[in-house]
């Protein structure tokens, strides 16, 4: 380590090794990571199958092993298409997706899926999502919104893999957006964890976690009036309103839109619970549904920054 040290002289003269563009690294990392996760999953499946096989009779064991180890045709995933807006290729509401299948939306399409666990997974426009399993997806482009509904935290969760990190739900509603510059996770309600190169960050209601292509993580509060998740309501499955109270309908609206419900006059809350709706909102957009329903109630509504406000005429 003296000034005559040849290693020191050599390294100083040649300089640092040239780096690789972060976007390139991210793309390769994503592909390698997906291959690795698939391998780990297959290994675990094989081990589980063998454990079952050993416990059963030879004949049954052979049958089970052959059934599960067959390197065969695409396997059903348990993920179903709930709703398609626009023209997202050959997808049909009610159809089941295969493991490994990619769902791609164009500039005018959105798609809602139901994972095997029951979670809603909604794809925004210009999104590509690969089905890894019934509860795991690989986001290759665009944005997905996850809604765990009424499922309690701790049950089987949803896993969204991206080149920059893996996002898992913990009983929540959140948005995962992928860009060439990195990953953004916005938690509307509940909590979601983000694994970045082995480090786990848990984001809670109202938080935004940004993971840059370099791996740098930034946490921030979601700005007031953030509308980045509004699109998810447009592809939500409409509720059956026949016989439902206006109060229940409004609860659905504010949940999907991620805002609070406010009444100009407290007595209107009681009134809303007493109004029973008739008909259907099938085929309507989210905004059309609200306008149509409210027009039948004799009440007015308006969206403010973070609230749906119901008022008298």
């Amino acid at each position, binding site marked *: 380590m003296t000034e005559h040290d040849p290693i020191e002289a050599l*390294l100083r003269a040649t300089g640092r090794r040239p*780096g690789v563009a972060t976007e*390139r690294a991210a793309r390769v990392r994503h592909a390698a990571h997906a*291959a690795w996760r698939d391998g780990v999953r297959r290994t675990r499946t094989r081990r589980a199958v063998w454990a079952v096989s050993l416990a059963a009779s030879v004949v049954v064991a052979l049958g089970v092993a052959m059934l599960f180890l067959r390197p065969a045709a695409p396997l059903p995933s348990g993920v179903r298409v709930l709703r398609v807006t626009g023209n997202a290729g050959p997808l049909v509401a009610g159809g089941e997706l295969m493991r490994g299948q990619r769902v791609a939306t164009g500039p005018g399409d959105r798609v809602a899926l139901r994972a095997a666990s029951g979670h809603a997974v909604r794809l925004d426009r210009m999104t590509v999502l690969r089905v890894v399993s019934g509860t795991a997806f690989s986001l290759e482009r665009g944005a997905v919104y996850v809604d765990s509904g009424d499922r309690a935290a701790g049950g089987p969760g949803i896993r969204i893999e991206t080149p920059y990190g893996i996002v898992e739900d913990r009983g929540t509603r959140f948005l995962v957006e992928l860009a060439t510059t990195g990953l953004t996770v916005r938690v509307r309600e509940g909590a979601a964890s983000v694994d970045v190169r082995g480090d786990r960050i848990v984001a809670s209601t109202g938080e935004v976690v940004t993971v840059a292509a370099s791996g740098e993580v930034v946490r921030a509060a979601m700005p007031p009036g953030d509308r980045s998740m509004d699109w998810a309501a447009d592809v939500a499955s409409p509720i059956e309103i026949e016989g439902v109270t206006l109060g229940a309908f409004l609860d659905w609206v504010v949940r999907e839109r991620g805002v609070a419900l406010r009444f100009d006059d407290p007595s209107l809350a009681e009134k809303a619970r007493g109004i029973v709706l008739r008909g259907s909102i099938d085929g309507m957009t989210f905004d059309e549904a609200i306008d149509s329903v409210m027009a039948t109630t004799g009440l007015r509504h308006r969206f403010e920054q973070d609230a749906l406000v119901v008022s008298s005429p």
Partner: protein
Amino acid sequence: MGAADLELVRRMLAGDERAFAEMFDGTFPGLFRFALARVGRDEDAAEEIVQATLVAAIRKLPTYRGEAALFTWLCTFCRHEISAYWARAQRAPVELPEDDPLFAAVVDAEVAVQREETARLVHVMLDRLPPRYAAALEWKYVDGLTVQEIAERLALSVKAAESMLTRARDAFREGFAILTRARAAGERS
């Protein structure tokens, strides 16, 4: 190095995310440079080759026995992908000195530092070291960090960092000496 790589692979096979990150961050830049030098500096081709390399190698991960360093093992997959690339392009591959042990040429360090090729070979040598060794050498000699600062980056005591730097220097010197001897043998023949 072999035992550490074997342990890293064992953790990867068990599904450890940190192990995947360690493997990727430790080998990807070196593999990219390895491929880049062999595809005429075409970065898109290098990316495609390294991606195919890692996907293929990961599928074969259970067969890794630690007989060679993990990076060396990955390079064998990379060479295969590079050959396939040139076969598809129907062109002759780029020949590099270090690919032929009889022609592995490294000129005298004091003269060679002026030459781009030697700089590349120094980088090749660094890529062949364990990532922490290579990073520590660059921090120390290129960036001018103190041992104390290197220790902090690696979450080590100063004494442990000094010891690691010594091992890194020894490993670099030994590897470079092998290249130098190979060159001398090539010149004699």
